[in-house]
Protein backbone atom coordinates (compact mmCIF):
# COMPACT_ATOMS: atom_id res chain seq x y z
CA UNK A 1 0.00 0.00 0.00
CA UNK A 2 1.37 3.44 -1.01
CA UNK A 3 0.60 6.19 1.45
CA UNK A 4 1.03 9.99 1.58
CA UNK A 5 1.00 11.75 4.95
CA UNK A 6 0.07 15.41 5.59
CA UNK A 7 0.83 16.42 9.17
CA UNK A 8 2.50 19.65 10.27
CA UNK A 9 3.74 18.47 13.67
CA UNK A 10 7.07 16.74 13.06
CA UNK A 11 6.79 14.67 16.24
CA UNK A 12 3.59 13.03 15.06
CA UNK A 13 4.55 12.85 11.42
CA UNK A 14 7.79 11.03 12.14
CA UNK A 15 6.14 8.68 14.62
CA UNK A 16 3.45 7.84 12.10
CA UNK A 17 5.96 7.25 9.31
CA UNK A 18 8.00 4.92 11.55
CA UNK A 19 4.86 3.04 12.60
CA UNK A 20 3.67 2.55 9.03
CA UNK A 21 7.08 1.56 7.68
CA UNK A 22 7.70 -1.08 10.31
CA UNK A 23 4.34 -2.58 9.39
CA UNK A 24 5.23 -2.88 5.74
CA UNK A 25 3.37 0.18 4.46
CA UNK A 26 5.14 2.29 1.87
CA UNK A 27 5.13 5.98 2.84
CA UNK A 28 5.91 7.59 -0.50
CA UNK A 29 5.68 11.27 0.49
CA UNK A 30 5.18 13.57 3.46
CA UNK A 31 3.60 17.01 3.35
CA UNK A 32 3.26 19.80 5.90
CA UNK A 33 0.37 21.75 4.40
CA UNK A 34 -2.58 21.56 2.01
CA UNK A 35 -0.84 22.54 -1.23
CA UNK A 36 2.05 20.20 -0.33
CA UNK A 37 -0.45 17.35 0.02
CA UNK A 38 -2.00 18.07 -3.38
CA UNK A 39 1.45 18.15 -4.99
CA UNK A 40 2.46 14.89 -3.31
CA UNK A 41 -0.73 13.18 -4.47
CA UNK A 42 -0.27 14.42 -8.04
CA UNK A 43 3.36 13.31 -8.06
CA UNK A 44 3.12 9.91 -6.38
CA UNK A 45 -0.40 8.66 -7.10
CA UNK A 46 -0.77 6.89 -3.74
CA UNK A 47 -3.53 4.52 -2.67
CA UNK A 48 -4.21 6.45 0.51
CA UNK A 49 -3.67 9.89 2.01
CA UNK A 50 -3.54 10.37 5.77
CA UNK A 51 -4.40 14.01 6.49
CA UNK A 52 -4.47 16.13 9.65
CA UNK A 53 -7.48 18.50 9.73
CA UNK A 54 -5.54 21.49 11.04
CA UNK A 55 -2.70 22.44 8.75
CA UNK A 56 -0.79 25.63 8.03
CA UNK A 57 -1.19 28.38 7.02
CA UNK A 58 -4.68 28.91 8.49
CA UNK A 59 -4.55 26.19 11.17
CA UNK A 60 -8.30 25.77 10.83
CA UNK A 61 -9.75 23.18 8.45
CA UNK A 62 -7.06 23.50 5.78
CA UNK A 63 -6.36 19.75 5.81
CA UNK A 64 -10.02 18.85 5.43
CA UNK A 65 -10.40 21.15 2.44
CA UNK A 66 -7.22 19.77 0.88
CA UNK A 67 -8.53 16.23 1.41
CA UNK A 68 -11.85 17.06 -0.26
CA UNK A 69 -9.99 18.70 -3.16
CA UNK A 70 -7.70 15.66 -3.48
CA UNK A 71 -10.74 13.39 -3.69
CA UNK A 72 -12.29 15.64 -6.31
CA UNK A 73 -9.14 15.31 -8.44
CA UNK A 74 -8.70 11.58 -7.83
CA UNK A 75 -12.00 9.96 -6.84
CA UNK A 76 -10.33 6.56 -6.40
CA UNK A 77 -7.95 7.89 -3.74
CA UNK A 78 -8.64 6.72 -0.20
CA UNK A 79 -8.51 9.55 2.36
CA UNK A 80 -8.18 9.08 6.09
CA UNK A 81 -8.61 12.33 7.99
CA UNK A 82 -7.17 12.48 11.49
CA UNK A 83 -8.12 15.08 14.03
CA UNK A 84 -7.83 15.82 17.72
CA UNK A 85 -11.55 16.48 17.82
CA UNK A 86 -14.54 15.18 15.95
CA UNK A 87 -17.01 17.51 14.23
CA UNK A 88 -19.98 15.87 12.55
CA UNK A 89 -20.13 18.78 10.11
CA UNK A 90 -16.64 17.82 8.91
CA UNK A 91 -17.63 14.16 8.65
CA UNK A 92 -20.61 14.89 6.42
CA UNK A 93 -18.61 17.31 4.25
CA UNK A 94 -15.86 14.75 3.83
CA UNK A 95 -18.29 12.02 2.91
CA UNK A 96 -20.19 14.25 0.49
CA UNK A 97 -21.63 12.25 -2.38
CA UNK A 98 -18.90 9.67 -2.58
CA UNK A 99 -18.72 7.48 0.52
CA UNK A 100 -16.14 5.07 -0.86
CA UNK A 101 -12.65 5.25 0.61
CA UNK A 102 -13.30 7.72 3.40
CA UNK A 103 -12.10 7.65 6.97
CA UNK A 104 -12.43 10.13 9.82
CA UNK A 105 -10.74 9.18 13.07
CA UNK A 106 -9.52 10.78 16.26
CA UNK A 107 -5.75 10.91 16.32
CA UNK A 108 -5.40 8.83 19.46
CA UNK A 109 -6.86 5.84 17.62
CA UNK A 110 -3.37 5.42 16.14
CA UNK A 111 -2.36 3.96 19.52
CA UNK A 112 -4.41 0.83 18.85
CA UNK A 113 -2.05 -0.14 16.07
CA UNK A 114 -3.86 -3.20 14.79
CA UNK A 115 -7.23 -1.48 14.56
CA UNK A 116 -5.58 1.54 12.97
CA UNK A 117 -3.82 -0.54 10.29
CA UNK A 118 -7.07 -2.38 9.73
CA UNK A 119 -8.85 0.94 9.21
CA UNK A 120 -6.16 2.08 6.78
CA UNK A 121 -6.59 -1.05 4.72
CA UNK A 122 -10.36 -0.72 4.66
CA UNK A 123 -10.23 2.91 3.57
CA UNK A 124 -7.62 2.14 0.88
CA UNK A 125 -9.93 -0.63 -0.34
CA UNK A 126 -12.83 1.78 -0.68
CA UNK A 127 -14.47 1.22 2.70
CA UNK A 128 -15.86 3.85 5.08
CA UNK A 129 -14.51 4.32 8.60
CA UNK A 130 -16.03 6.79 11.04
CA UNK A 131 -14.82 7.41 14.53
CA UNK A 132 -17.22 6.19 17.21
CA UNK A 133 -17.31 9.79 18.48
CA UNK A 134 -19.19 10.79 15.32
CA UNK A 135 -21.94 8.38 16.28
CA UNK A 136 -21.89 9.58 19.88
CA UNK A 137 -22.11 13.23 18.88
CA UNK A 138 -24.91 12.65 16.43
CA UNK A 139 -27.01 10.32 18.46
CA UNK A 140 -26.68 11.50 22.03
CA UNK A 141 -28.52 14.76 22.59
CA UNK A 142 -26.80 17.01 25.10
CA UNK A 143 -29.36 16.49 27.82
CA UNK A 144 -29.02 12.72 27.46
CA UNK A 145 -32.74 12.15 27.91
CA UNK A 146 -34.37 11.92 24.51
CA UNK A 147 -33.36 10.76 21.05
CA UNK A 148 -33.37 7.53 19.14
CA UNK A 149 -30.43 6.18 21.07
CA UNK A 150 -32.50 6.07 24.22
CA UNK A 151 -34.04 2.85 22.93
CA UNK A 152 -30.63 1.16 22.59
CA UNK A 153 -28.89 -0.61 25.44
CA UNK A 154 -25.37 0.46 26.38
CA UNK A 155 -23.95 -2.65 24.71
CA UNK A 156 -25.95 -2.05 21.53
CA UNK A 157 -24.58 1.49 21.48
CA UNK A 158 -21.02 0.11 21.70
CA UNK A 159 -21.76 -2.21 18.80
CA UNK A 160 -23.22 0.65 16.74
CA UNK A 161 -20.12 2.76 17.29
CA UNK A 162 -17.85 -0.06 16.21
CA UNK A 163 -20.07 -0.67 13.18
CA UNK A 164 -19.59 2.96 12.17
CA UNK A 165 -15.87 2.25 12.23
CA UNK A 166 -16.60 -0.31 9.56
CA UNK A 167 -15.50 -3.28 11.61
CA UNK A 168 -16.45 -6.87 10.91
CA UNK A 169 -18.54 -8.92 13.33
CA UNK A 170 -15.45 -10.82 14.40
CA UNK A 171 -13.54 -7.59 15.09
CA UNK A 172 -16.47 -6.19 17.07
CA UNK A 173 -16.75 -9.41 19.06
CA UNK A 174 -13.02 -9.32 19.80
CA UNK A 175 -13.14 -5.70 20.84
CA UNK A 176 -16.09 -6.14 23.19
CA UNK A 177 -14.90 -9.56 24.42
CA UNK A 178 -18.13 -11.34 23.46
CA UNK A 179 -18.96 -14.16 21.03
CA UNK A 180 -19.66 -13.35 17.36
CA UNK A 181 -23.11 -14.82 17.87
CA UNK A 182 -23.87 -12.25 20.56
CA UNK A 183 -22.70 -9.48 18.26
CA UNK A 184 -25.03 -10.68 15.52
CA UNK A 185 -27.90 -10.63 17.97
CA UNK A 186 -27.07 -7.06 19.01
CA UNK A 187 -26.85 -5.96 15.38
CA UNK A 188 -30.24 -7.47 14.57
CA UNK A 189 -31.68 -5.60 17.56
CA UNK A 190 -30.07 -2.30 16.55
CA UNK A 191 -31.30 -2.56 12.98
CA UNK A 192 -34.82 -3.33 14.06
CA UNK A 193 -34.86 -0.57 16.72
CA UNK A 194 -33.50 2.03 14.30
CA UNK A 195 -35.64 0.65 11.49
CA UNK A 196 -32.67 0.00 9.17
CA UNK A 197 -32.59 -2.57 6.36
CA UNK A 198 -30.57 -5.58 7.52
CA UNK A 199 -27.41 -6.50 5.60
CA UNK A 200 -24.26 -8.48 6.16
CA UNK A 201 -21.67 -6.56 4.16
CA UNK A 202 -19.51 -4.43 6.51
CA UNK A 203 -19.32 -1.44 4.21
CA UNK A 204 -22.98 -1.39 3.34
CA UNK A 205 -23.68 -1.61 7.03
CA UNK A 206 -21.70 1.57 7.66
CA UNK A 207 -23.65 3.23 4.88
CA UNK A 208 -26.90 2.19 6.47
CA UNK A 209 -25.74 3.65 9.77
CA UNK A 210 -24.60 6.81 7.98
CA UNK A 211 -27.92 7.19 6.24
CA UNK A 212 -29.56 6.97 9.63
CA UNK A 213 -27.16 9.52 11.09
CA UNK A 214 -27.90 11.93 8.24
CA UNK A 215 -31.60 11.72 8.93
CA UNK A 216 -30.95 12.19 12.65
CA UNK A 217 -28.77 15.23 11.92
Amino acid at each position, binding site marked *: MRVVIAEDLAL*LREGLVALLRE*NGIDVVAQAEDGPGLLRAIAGHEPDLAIVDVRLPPTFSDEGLRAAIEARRRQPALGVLVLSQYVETAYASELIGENTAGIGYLLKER*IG*DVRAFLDALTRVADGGTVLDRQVVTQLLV*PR*DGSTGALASLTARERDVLELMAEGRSNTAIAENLVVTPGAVEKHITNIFSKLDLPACDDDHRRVLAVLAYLRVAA
Partner: protein
Amino acid sequence: MRNGAHMTSFAPAGAPRRWMPVLAAGLSRGEYARSLFRRLACLTAVLLTAIWALSGQGYFWPAWAWLGLAVPVLLDFTANWAWRHERGPVRRVACVWALVSVAAVILLLTWLLTWLLAGVHEFWPAWALLGLATAGSAYSLVALHDRVLVARGRRALRARIDMLTRTRRQAVDAQAAELRRIERDLHDGAQARLVALTLQLGRAEMRVDDQPEIRRLIREAQNEAHHAIAELRDLARGIVPPLLADRGLVAAVESLAARYGLGTSIHTDTRRTHPPAVESAAYFVVAEALTNTAKHAQARHSWVSMTDEHRALVVVVGDDGRGGADPDGSGLAGLRARVEALDGRLSVESAHSAGTTVKVSIPCG
Protein backbone atom coordinates in the same frame (compact mmCIF):
# COMPACT_ATOMS: atom_id res chain seq x y z
CA MET B 1 -37.49 79.43 17.23
CA ARG B 2 -36.63 83.02 16.80
CA ASN B 3 -40.27 84.03 16.88
CA GLY B 4 -40.92 81.90 19.93
CA ALA B 5 -37.97 83.46 21.70
CA HIS B 6 -39.22 86.94 20.90
CA MET B 7 -42.64 86.18 22.24
CA THR B 8 -41.41 84.62 25.45
CA SER B 9 -39.34 87.72 26.04
CA PHE B 10 -42.55 89.67 26.44
CA ALA B 11 -44.60 86.92 27.99
CA PRO B 12 -42.15 85.08 30.21
CA ALA B 13 -44.78 83.78 32.60
CA GLY B 14 -46.51 81.28 30.39
CA ALA B 15 -47.21 79.97 26.95
CA PRO B 16 -47.15 82.34 23.98
CA ARG B 17 -50.51 84.09 23.82
CA ARG B 18 -51.57 82.73 20.49
CA TRP B 19 -55.19 83.77 21.07
CA MET B 20 -54.24 87.43 20.85
CA PRO B 21 -55.06 89.16 17.60
CA VAL B 22 -52.15 89.04 15.21
CA LEU B 23 -51.76 92.49 13.79
CA ALA B 24 -49.51 92.07 10.80
CA ALA B 25 -47.57 89.33 9.05
CA GLY B 26 -48.05 86.80 11.86
CA LEU B 27 -46.41 89.00 14.52
CA SER B 28 -47.48 88.93 18.16
CA ARG B 29 -48.60 92.12 19.87
CA GLY B 30 -45.18 92.59 21.47
CA GLU B 31 -43.46 92.05 18.17
CA TYR B 32 -45.79 94.49 16.52
CA ALA B 33 -45.18 97.15 19.18
CA ARG B 34 -41.42 96.79 18.86
CA SER B 35 -41.53 96.90 15.11
CA LEU B 36 -43.71 100.01 15.32
CA PHE B 37 -41.34 101.63 17.81
CA ARG B 38 -38.34 100.96 15.55
CA ARG B 39 -40.12 102.54 12.60
CA LEU B 40 -41.30 105.55 14.63
CA ALA B 41 -37.76 106.01 15.97
CA CYS B 42 -36.36 106.05 12.44
CA LEU B 43 -39.07 108.46 11.32
CA THR B 44 -38.48 110.77 14.32
CA ALA B 45 -34.73 110.76 13.64
CA VAL B 46 -35.30 111.68 10.01
CA LEU B 47 -37.87 114.38 10.95
CA LEU B 48 -35.60 115.98 13.57
CA THR B 49 -32.71 115.97 11.12
CA ALA B 50 -34.95 117.61 8.53
CA ILE B 51 -36.05 120.27 11.08
CA TRP B 52 -32.37 120.91 11.89
CA ALA B 53 -31.59 121.22 8.21
CA LEU B 54 -34.54 123.60 7.58
CA SER B 55 -33.93 125.70 10.71
CA GLY B 56 -30.59 127.02 9.54
CA GLN B 57 -28.39 124.11 10.66
CA GLY B 58 -25.58 125.20 13.00
CA TYR B 59 -24.82 122.94 16.01
CA PHE B 60 -25.82 119.37 15.02
CA TRP B 61 -28.15 118.76 17.94
CA PRO B 62 -30.19 115.87 16.28
CA ALA B 63 -27.23 113.58 17.04
CA TRP B 64 -28.26 113.56 20.69
CA ALA B 65 -31.81 112.69 19.68
CA TRP B 66 -30.40 109.80 17.59
CA LEU B 67 -28.55 108.57 20.65
CA GLY B 68 -31.67 108.84 22.77
CA LEU B 69 -33.72 106.87 20.25
CA ALA B 70 -30.99 104.27 19.70
CA VAL B 71 -30.77 103.32 23.39
CA PRO B 72 -34.26 101.68 23.71
CA VAL B 73 -33.74 99.82 20.41
CA LEU B 74 -30.37 98.57 21.61
CA LEU B 75 -31.81 97.57 24.98
CA ASP B 76 -34.54 95.65 23.18
CA PHE B 77 -32.01 93.70 21.08
CA THR B 78 -29.70 92.82 23.96
CA ALA B 79 -32.57 91.87 26.29
CA ASN B 80 -33.86 89.61 23.59
CA TRP B 81 -30.44 88.01 23.17
CA ALA B 82 -30.05 87.53 26.92
CA TRP B 83 -33.48 85.91 27.24
CA ARG B 84 -32.57 83.23 24.76
CA HIS B 85 -30.22 81.62 27.28
CA GLU B 86 -31.37 78.83 29.55
CA ARG B 87 -33.00 79.89 32.80
CA GLY B 88 -30.77 80.27 35.82
CA PRO B 89 -27.26 81.59 36.30
CA VAL B 90 -26.44 81.61 32.60
CA ARG B 91 -29.41 83.87 31.79
CA ARG B 92 -28.57 86.16 34.68
CA VAL B 93 -24.99 86.50 33.45
CA ALA B 94 -26.28 87.16 29.93
CA CYS B 95 -28.57 89.91 31.28
CA VAL B 96 -25.67 91.52 33.15
CA TRP B 97 -23.55 91.47 29.98
CA ALA B 98 -26.47 92.88 27.97
CA LEU B 99 -26.69 95.85 30.40
CA VAL B 100 -22.90 96.25 30.44
CA SER B 101 -22.72 96.28 26.66
CA VAL B 102 -25.60 98.81 26.34
CA ALA B 103 -23.93 101.07 28.91
CA ALA B 104 -20.60 100.71 27.08
CA VAL B 105 -22.20 101.59 23.75
CA ILE B 106 -23.92 104.64 25.29
CA LEU B 107 -20.58 105.76 26.74
CA LEU B 108 -18.74 105.24 23.47
CA LEU B 109 -21.39 106.97 21.37
CA THR B 110 -21.55 109.91 23.80
CA TRP B 111 -17.76 110.20 23.67
CA LEU B 112 -17.89 110.03 19.87
CA LEU B 113 -20.45 112.84 19.77
CA THR B 114 -18.55 115.04 22.29
CA TRP B 115 -15.43 114.49 20.20
CA LEU B 116 -17.10 115.24 16.90
CA LEU B 117 -19.44 118.03 18.06
CA ALA B 118 -17.57 119.63 20.99
CA GLY B 119 -13.98 118.72 20.07
CA VAL B 120 -13.23 116.85 23.29
CA HIS B 121 -10.05 114.90 22.60
CA GLU B 122 -9.60 113.10 25.88
CA PHE B 123 -10.94 109.50 25.93
CA TRP B 124 -12.89 110.06 29.10
CA PRO B 125 -15.00 106.80 29.13
CA ALA B 126 -11.85 104.63 29.59
CA TRP B 127 -12.20 104.19 33.35
CA ALA B 128 -15.94 103.73 33.18
CA LEU B 129 -15.56 101.02 30.51
CA LEU B 130 -12.90 99.27 32.54
CA GLY B 131 -15.15 99.40 35.60
CA LEU B 132 -18.11 97.97 33.66
CA ALA B 133 -15.99 95.13 32.23
CA THR B 134 -14.57 94.32 35.66
CA ALA B 135 -18.00 94.28 37.26
CA GLY B 136 -19.41 92.05 34.49
CA SER B 137 -16.50 89.65 34.71
CA ALA B 138 -16.63 89.48 38.49
CA TYR B 139 -20.34 88.75 38.43
CA SER B 140 -19.87 86.06 35.73
CA LEU B 141 -17.12 84.36 37.70
CA VAL B 142 -19.19 84.26 40.89
CA ALA B 143 -22.39 83.16 39.15
CA LEU B 144 -20.81 80.51 36.93
CA HIS B 145 -18.21 79.24 39.37
CA ASP B 146 -20.12 76.05 40.25
CA ARG B 147 -21.04 75.53 36.67
CA VAL B 148 -17.47 75.67 35.47
CA LEU B 149 -16.43 73.24 38.17
CA VAL B 150 -19.28 70.86 37.33
CA ALA B 151 -18.48 71.05 33.63
CA ARG B 152 -14.85 70.31 34.35
CA GLY B 153 -15.85 67.39 36.59
CA ARG B 154 -18.19 66.09 33.92
CA ARG B 155 -15.49 66.29 31.30
CA ALA B 156 -13.11 64.40 33.57
CA LEU B 157 -15.77 61.79 34.28
CA ARG B 158 -16.52 61.33 30.62
CA ALA B 159 -12.84 60.91 29.83
CA ARG B 160 -12.58 58.36 32.62
CA ILE B 161 -15.63 56.43 31.35
CA ASP B 162 -14.20 56.46 27.83
CA MET B 163 -10.89 55.21 29.13
CA LEU B 164 -12.51 52.47 31.26
CA THR B 165 -14.75 51.34 28.39
CA ARG B 166 -11.79 51.18 26.05
CA THR B 167 -9.46 49.37 28.44
CA ARG B 168 -12.18 46.94 29.53
CA ARG B 169 -12.85 46.03 25.93
CA GLN B 170 -9.13 45.67 25.33
CA ALA B 171 -8.86 43.42 28.39
CA VAL B 172 -11.78 41.25 27.23
CA ASP B 173 -10.36 41.03 23.70
CA ALA B 174 -6.92 40.24 25.03
CA GLN B 175 -8.41 37.54 27.24
CA ALA B 176 -10.26 36.00 24.29
CA ALA B 177 -7.11 36.07 22.16
CA GLU B 178 -5.15 34.55 25.01
CA LEU B 179 -7.74 31.77 25.43
CA ARG B 180 -7.50 30.97 21.74
CA ARG B 181 -3.73 30.90 22.01
CA ILE B 182 -4.01 28.49 24.95
CA GLU B 183 -6.35 26.30 22.92
CA ARG B 184 -3.86 26.31 20.04
CA ASP B 185 -1.00 25.54 22.43
CA LEU B 186 -2.94 22.63 23.94
CA HIS B 187 -3.65 21.31 20.47
CA ASP B 188 -0.11 21.57 19.19
CA GLY B 189 1.56 20.92 22.53
CA ALA B 190 0.22 18.68 25.27
CA GLN B 191 -2.45 16.98 23.14
CA ALA B 192 -0.04 16.28 20.28
CA ARG B 193 2.58 14.92 22.70
CA LEU B 194 0.04 12.61 24.31
CA VAL B 195 -1.02 11.36 20.89
CA ALA B 196 2.66 10.77 20.06
CA LEU B 197 2.95 8.91 23.37
CA THR B 198 0.06 6.56 22.55
CA LEU B 199 1.60 6.05 19.13
CA GLN B 200 4.94 5.00 20.64
CA LEU B 201 3.17 2.80 23.19
CA GLY B 202 1.31 1.19 20.29
CA ARG B 203 4.60 0.49 18.52
CA ALA B 204 6.01 -0.96 21.70
CA GLU B 205 2.95 -3.14 22.15
CA MET B 206 3.42 -4.61 18.68
CA ARG B 207 6.89 -5.81 19.68
CA VAL B 208 5.83 -7.70 22.79
CA ASP B 209 3.05 -9.73 21.20
CA ASP B 210 4.24 -12.83 23.04
CA GLN B 211 4.36 -11.22 26.51
CA PRO B 212 0.77 -10.68 27.71
CA GLU B 213 1.81 -9.13 31.04
CA ILE B 214 3.79 -6.35 29.37
CA ARG B 215 1.05 -5.89 26.78
CA ARG B 216 -1.45 -5.43 29.58
CA LEU B 217 0.73 -2.77 31.22
CA ILE B 218 1.14 -0.95 27.94
CA ARG B 219 -2.63 -1.05 27.36
CA GLU B 220 -3.18 0.47 30.78
CA ALA B 221 -0.67 3.21 30.06
CA GLN B 222 -2.48 3.89 26.79
CA ASN B 223 -5.82 4.10 28.54
CA GLU B 224 -4.39 6.70 30.91
CA ALA B 225 -3.09 8.67 27.96
CA HIS B 226 -6.53 8.43 26.33
CA HIS B 227 -8.21 9.78 29.45
CA ALA B 228 -5.74 12.67 29.54
CA ILE B 229 -6.37 13.40 25.84
CA ALA B 230 -10.15 13.31 26.36
CA GLU B 231 -9.87 15.67 29.33
CA LEU B 232 -7.72 18.09 27.38
CA ARG B 233 -10.15 17.91 24.49
CA ASP B 234 -13.08 18.76 26.75
CA LEU B 235 -11.05 21.59 28.25
CA ALA B 236 -10.19 22.98 24.80
CA ARG B 237 -13.82 22.66 23.69
CA GLY B 238 -14.92 24.62 26.74
CA ILE B 239 -12.45 27.38 25.86
CA VAL B 240 -13.19 27.57 22.14
CA PRO B 241 -15.25 24.95 20.35
CA PRO B 242 -13.13 23.81 17.37
CA LEU B 243 -15.74 24.68 14.78
CA LEU B 244 -16.00 28.22 16.18
CA ALA B 245 -12.24 28.65 16.00
CA ASP B 246 -12.02 27.10 12.52
CA ARG B 247 -15.09 28.43 10.75
CA GLY B 248 -16.67 31.14 12.81
CA LEU B 249 -19.97 31.73 14.55
CA VAL B 250 -22.52 30.75 11.92
CA ALA B 251 -21.01 27.33 11.18
CA ALA B 252 -20.52 26.64 14.88
CA VAL B 253 -24.12 27.54 15.76
CA GLU B 254 -25.48 25.47 12.87
CA SER B 255 -23.54 22.45 14.06
CA LEU B 256 -24.61 23.10 17.63
CA ALA B 257 -28.30 23.27 16.69
CA ALA B 258 -28.01 20.08 14.64
CA ARG B 259 -26.59 18.25 17.63
CA TYR B 260 -29.58 18.93 19.83
CA GLY B 261 -31.96 17.27 17.41
CA LEU B 262 -34.63 19.87 18.18
CA GLY B 263 -35.28 20.68 14.54
CA THR B 264 -34.09 24.20 15.28
CA SER B 265 -34.58 26.63 12.41
CA ILE B 266 -31.71 29.03 11.92
CA HIS B 267 -31.76 32.48 10.36
CA THR B 268 -28.45 34.26 9.94
CA ASP B 269 -27.73 37.58 8.35
CA THR B 270 -24.27 38.46 9.59
CA ARG B 271 -21.65 39.23 7.05
CA ARG B 272 -19.13 40.72 9.37
CA THR B 273 -16.35 38.94 11.20
CA HIS B 274 -16.85 39.68 14.88
CA PRO B 275 -14.12 39.89 17.50
CA PRO B 276 -13.33 36.52 19.13
CA ALA B 277 -14.77 37.64 22.49
CA VAL B 278 -18.10 38.55 20.84
CA GLU B 279 -18.28 35.30 18.88
CA SER B 280 -17.51 33.19 21.94
CA ALA B 281 -20.09 34.98 24.09
CA ALA B 282 -22.77 34.63 21.39
CA TYR B 283 -21.92 30.97 20.89
CA PHE B 284 -22.14 30.07 24.55
CA VAL B 285 -25.43 31.95 24.92
CA VAL B 286 -26.93 29.90 22.08
CA ALA B 287 -25.52 26.70 23.61
CA GLU B 288 -26.98 27.48 27.04
CA ALA B 289 -30.35 28.53 25.65
CA LEU B 290 -30.65 25.40 23.49
CA THR B 291 -29.61 23.21 26.42
CA ASN B 292 -32.38 24.77 28.49
CA THR B 293 -34.86 24.28 25.66
CA ALA B 294 -33.91 20.61 25.32
CA LYS B 295 -34.01 20.00 29.06
CA HIS B 296 -37.03 21.93 30.25
CA ALA B 297 -39.12 23.56 27.55
CA GLN B 298 -40.97 20.59 25.99
CA ALA B 299 -41.03 22.72 22.87
CA ARG B 300 -42.30 21.76 19.44
CA HIS B 301 -40.27 24.41 17.63
CA SER B 302 -37.13 26.34 18.41
CA TRP B 303 -35.25 28.93 16.41
CA VAL B 304 -32.02 30.88 16.39
CA SER B 305 -31.53 34.17 14.59
CA MET B 306 -28.28 36.11 14.26
CA THR B 307 -28.25 39.53 12.62
CA ASP B 308 -26.11 42.65 12.48
CA GLU B 309 -28.08 45.66 13.68
CA HIS B 310 -26.64 49.14 14.19
CA ARG B 311 -23.07 48.02 14.74
CA ALA B 312 -24.17 45.27 17.12
CA LEU B 313 -24.55 41.54 16.82
CA VAL B 314 -28.08 40.53 17.82
CA VAL B 315 -28.76 36.89 18.67
CA VAL B 316 -32.22 35.60 19.50
CA VAL B 317 -32.90 32.05 20.67
CA GLY B 318 -36.54 31.14 21.12
CA ASP B 319 -38.88 28.22 21.59
CA ASP B 320 -42.63 27.62 21.87
CA GLY B 321 -42.35 25.55 25.01
CA ARG B 322 -43.89 25.93 28.42
CA GLY B 323 -41.87 29.03 29.45
CA GLY B 324 -41.39 29.95 33.07
CA ALA B 325 -37.59 29.96 32.88
CA ASP B 326 -35.68 31.74 35.62
CA PRO B 327 -33.93 34.72 33.98
CA ASP B 328 -31.40 34.70 36.81
CA GLY B 329 -30.73 30.97 36.73
CA SER B 330 -27.08 30.14 37.23
CA GLY B 331 -26.37 29.39 33.57
CA LEU B 332 -27.97 32.55 32.25
CA ALA B 333 -26.57 34.73 35.04
CA GLY B 334 -23.02 33.69 34.12
CA LEU B 335 -23.68 34.44 30.47
CA ARG B 336 -25.25 37.79 31.33
CA ALA B 337 -22.04 38.78 33.11
CA ARG B 338 -20.05 37.68 30.08
CA VAL B 339 -22.26 39.66 27.70
CA GLU B 340 -22.30 42.75 29.93
CA ALA B 341 -18.51 42.74 30.07
CA LEU B 342 -18.76 43.43 26.34
CA ASP B 343 -21.24 46.28 26.94
CA GLY B 344 -23.94 43.98 25.63
CA ARG B 345 -27.42 43.19 26.93
CA LEU B 346 -29.07 39.87 27.64
CA SER B 347 -32.81 39.65 28.19
CA VAL B 348 -35.03 36.67 28.87
CA GLU B 349 -38.75 36.56 28.20
CA SER B 350 -40.37 33.46 29.56
CA ALA B 351 -43.94 33.92 30.63
CA HIS B 352 -45.81 30.79 31.69
CA SER B 353 -46.96 28.72 28.68
CA ALA B 354 -45.67 31.40 26.30
CA GLY B 355 -42.32 29.94 25.30
CA THR B 356 -38.92 31.34 26.12
CA THR B 357 -36.97 33.95 24.20
CA VAL B 358 -33.39 34.82 25.04
CA LYS B 359 -32.15 37.93 23.29
CA VAL B 360 -28.58 39.15 23.26
CA SER B 361 -27.20 42.29 21.70
CA ILE B 362 -23.45 42.85 21.72
CA PRO B 363 -21.92 46.00 20.24
CA CYS B 364 -19.02 45.42 17.86
CA GLY B 365 -16.84 48.51 17.47
